[in-house]
């Protein structure tokens, strides 16, 4: 079969899904388009073949059996229908949503842990690089002037010196 951009219109036409005006427009196109005419013919024969051949009857007294089974059922309790109303499609997404929540929790937990270890590294940095000798001298100094001087030295040593 060839190709025509209006082939999907041919399907809608064959399925009776067009308004009268649209039908008239399509009919004038189909009059000059062999591809659409061939497609229409094919769809019509397929539709009639399927529709004619595939009808099946339920077993004898099938409906009565269902009515009897329904009569034997207890009426549903309030709230019992919740899961039935959720729908099979929505129900399918529940495990995926739960998994996504769990993953998000782990990611957030890992991020917090990373922040925590960064803080530990920073604390260790202070501990190993802080010039404790000067600081101790400052604490041990008897007079306040030399204590202030020692403390100033320890702080400037730690911060990499002051601007001259």
């Amino acid at each position, binding site marked *: 079969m060839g190709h025509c951009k209006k082939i999907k219109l041919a399907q809608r036409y064959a399925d009776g*899904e067009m308004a009268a005006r649209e039908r008239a427009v399509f009919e004038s196109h189909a009059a000059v388009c062999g591809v659409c005419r061939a497609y229409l013919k094919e*769809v019509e024969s397929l539709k009639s*073949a*399927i529709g004619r051949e595939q*009808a099946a009857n339920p077993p004898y007294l*099938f409906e009565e059996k269902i009515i009897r089974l329904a009569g034997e059922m207890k009426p549903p309790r309030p709230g019992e229908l919740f899961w039935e109303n959720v729908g099979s499609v929505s129900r399918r997404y529940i495990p995926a949503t739960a998994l996504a929540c769990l993953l998000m929790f782990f990611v957030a937990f890992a991020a917090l842990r990373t922040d925590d270890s960064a803080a530990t590294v920073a604390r260790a940095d202070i501990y190993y690089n802080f010039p404790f000798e000067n600081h101790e001298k400052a604490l041990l100094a008897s007079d306040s002037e030399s204590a202030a001087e020692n403390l100033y030295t320890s702080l400037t040593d730690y911060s990499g010196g002051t601007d001259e």
Partner: protein
Amino acid sequence: MTQPEQNDSDYASIVREHGAKIYNAVYCVLGNATDAEDVTQEAFLKAFRALQGFKGEASVATWLYRIAMNAANDHLRKNKRYARMREPLEGVELKLADQSDGPFENPESAFFKKERTETIKKALAKLPAKFRPVIVLKDIEGLSYKEIGSILGISIGTVESRLFRAREMLRKELTRVSN
């Protein structure tokens, strides 16, 4: 008449009115009479439980088709019977509804009719599961795109494109078989 009695009576008339066509649609989707019976029964019992909550936003038929198609899809997913359906369906009896020419039917014509039926049935069974309900609801049940979209929970555009692709696949398969 009390409320439960009224519900039972409504339900019975719904089952009698729609039972055969719902069974037929499920049968065409599943391609197996035993499964179709189980799934249709399950769908109608679900409908019974949900009857009080039915607000009449859609027609009763659309509502029932929706429940039945969901049940059929669940059944296909649970049982993974695609593989089985792709094999020739031997020994499955197809009951034609009022189509026989009666006792005067020519045996030759009956044979060809049966053969044609089986061919179409196999071609339908080869369709992927998501395309089967669309073609069944359109070409066998004669529903509109809007109704099909409402039953399957898809847009009209999706109904159109699935139908187009399903027909293409069927056409190719039937051409292959006839060659």
